[in-house]
């Protein structure tokens, strides 16, 4: 098999949506590193206070910290993105490329490459493995996750263990708006009707059913969906943000969404919910933010909802400034006047 065909096969394997359990670093990845990499990329020994046997490219692959730190060219793994990870990319180069790794001996097999790619695409987690060097070191924080906002951490958590859908499944939904991964490497989807609002109706939305478990953000503002779509949306078990603003959706079927345990933001501004819809809205116990401008709920009803649910941010009409008084006659002295 040619090298390229092998690579193609590897990518196909890595990208396939077959349900596979998560790669176990210690059991599946470590043997590859130990067998093919650490001979040249080991933590230097200290003899007589001097480092001996410097690792090639200043890259150490026998410790967690070494792999996370990278070598003289910078980082070698980008968690969730094997195609940006040099640890993987360098091993996919053709045999005659001067940059190919391992530098001596056979190339990695397609199966080994697939394992590496999957491990990285699943977030490059090491389990409890620390490896050579300072054993007492606290587990290194994930370099990408460090400094990430709680919002992003929640997305990662929600996507855990979920396989990405393949393109064909997504294409079959024939959705006229945008479907995109929530971010690179995430199995979760962001679905938006923007720019194609008039085409997105109940029928179009119903065709999203095969994707339902993957949709985390659904933006249907101004689209043609009605109450009938709420049955479809109720199947989106990983939905976090739902925007139904400026649609014909009413309060009647909203209780269908109560089952959505992940739902945190619900946008209903300019939907005719009616003055009494506060009761059903108060039942969304996990909801964090709700938009209710021009929904038939008056200020008192909004205040009541906020009181019932202290953890909920209730957003009403915009507090726009009153129009300015007519500009006073200019009295100030201008230079050169």
């Amino acid at each position, binding site marked *: 098999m040619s090298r390229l065909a092998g690579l193609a096969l590897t990518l196909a394997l890595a990208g396939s949506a077959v349900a596979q359990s998560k790669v176990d670093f210690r059991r599946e990845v470590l043997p590859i590193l130990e067998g093919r990499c650490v001979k040249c990329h080991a933590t230097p020994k200290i003899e007589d206070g001097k480092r001996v046997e410097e690792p090639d490219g200043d890259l150490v692959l026998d410790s967690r910290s070494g792999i996370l730190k990278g070598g003289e060219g910078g980082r070698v793994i980008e968690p969730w993105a094997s195609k940006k990870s040099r640890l993987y990319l360098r091993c996919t180069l053709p045999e005659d490329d001067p940059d190919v790794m391992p530098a001596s001996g056979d190339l990695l097999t397609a199966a080994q490459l697939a394992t590496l790619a999957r491990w990285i695409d699943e977030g490059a987690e090491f389990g409890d493995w620390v490896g050579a060097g300072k054993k007492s070191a606290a587990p290194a924080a994930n370099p990408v996750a460090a400094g990430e906002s709680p919002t992003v951490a929640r997305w990662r958590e929600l996507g855990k263990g979920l396989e990405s859908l393949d393109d064909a499944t997504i294409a079959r939904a024939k959705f*006229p708006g945008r479907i995109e991964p929530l971010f690179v490497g995430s199995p979760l989807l962001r679905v938006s009707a923007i720019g194609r609002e008039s085409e997105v109706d109940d029928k179009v939305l119903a065709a999203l059913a095969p994707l339902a478990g993957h949709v985390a953000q659904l933006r249907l503002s101004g689209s043609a969906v009605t109450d009938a779509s709420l049955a479809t949306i109720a199947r989106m078990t990983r939905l976090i943000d739902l925007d139904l603003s400026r649609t014909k959706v009413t309060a009647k079927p909203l209780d269908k969404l109560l089952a959505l345990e992940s739902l945190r933001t619900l946008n209903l501004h300019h939907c005719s919910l009616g003055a009494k819809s506060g009761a059903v809205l108060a039942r969304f116990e996990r909801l964090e933010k709700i938009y209710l401008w021009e929904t038939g709920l008056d200020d008192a009803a909004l205040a009541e909802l906020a009181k019932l649910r202290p953890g909920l941010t209730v957003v009403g009409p915009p507090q726009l400034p009153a129009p300015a008084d007519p500009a006073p006659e200019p009295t100030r002295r201008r230079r050169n006047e």
Partner: protein
Amino acid sequence: MTLKSILRESDEQSRRAFLANTARGLLGLGAMPLFSRFAGAAMPQDAAAPVALRPATARNVIYLYMSGGMSHLDTFDLKPGSEVQGPIERLKTNADDVFVSQHFPLLARHMDKVAVINSLSSNQGAHEQGRYFMHTSYEMRGTIKHPTLGSWVHRMAGRVNPNLPGHVTVGNAGPGESAGFLESRYLPLPIGDPEAGLQNSVRAKGVDEKTFARRLDRLRRMNGAFADRYGAKAVRGYSDMYDDAVKLMSSADLEAFDLEREPEAVRAAYGDDPFGQGCLLARRLVEHGVRFVEVTSGGWDTHNDNFEQMEEKCPVIDRALASLLADLEARGLLDETIVVLATEFGRTPEIVTERNSGRNHHPKAFSGLLAGGGIRGGRTWGKTDERGENVIENKVLVPDFNATIAHALGLPLDHVLTSPSGRPFTVAHKGKPILELFA
């Protein structure tokens, strides 16, 4: 295939994408497959594919630019009781840690949404160079034109609404209107007067739809052979421009540009002036899926009459920005729209009495604002000394500021785009995002 070519692959237009594009140009084939591959693979409907986005808390940007150098001491970094302060008083806001000048009473009610950066620092003390640096994160030089932030965002994140431009500038022609070395398709659509909307966007009188289609078809045929032979960026840029313009002309989204559709009370709330109406237009455009809108306010170069000019200029910003934040929030747009207020530098602590209390250029320390799009509001970041002269805490360099915006949008800061001359550039030029600002 070498390593480099693999890494570059996602940027290069594939032959298929080129053919698809040409076909679109020649035959008017707009209906391209919606979905190609995930993760930044070539998208046939765009000449260059957007890049794979990191987790993003913002999807759009409204960038308000105070051209001329906004005085930090008289707006968001006040030094009450100090000899450098002059007559302007400090106002409390609805956020404990945040103060604004007395000229921002309306904005003071919305500062819980805003992070004030009081430690911006630039090394460019002249207007043109300062504006260029703020917009591109690179210093101006003779050998290359760098893309502005709007063009970077447009190029890397792609359009939201395929019928509308990815990037619009409102107000006087400014430094935001350059795509640098990028293709001309990443230029913004400039709107001079927000109230006039988009000019010449309807078919000329006496040209019916059929005639128009026939003319376009003839144009495509005449250009086709040339485009085939010389598929250079600039050539594609021209045909893309026609395609986009035609798409826009027949689009229902054209109404996004029409401020007449707003209630009179809303228009009045934003302020009856080009900046206020520009902010309202920005909100409409973002709502319709324009990725990046820049609105410019000019005349901040207050060498003369600093305090009198503040009295005149700040209320315009106060009203427009307070309305914009309230309006975006009520619509649920503020969660995904990062609102930026920036300028090229601050102004000196020294008050020049000979020029009726003017202030001169001061790039060493100045202020900017960030709100929405995942930014945690209601706080102040960074600190200057008691004169507002030097940054003494959490210095934010211009590339850091831009990197923070790029980070909010999920743009990979290490993603290299290569200029036609083969030189590598990255968005925000190695700036470090201020991660602490994110909620």
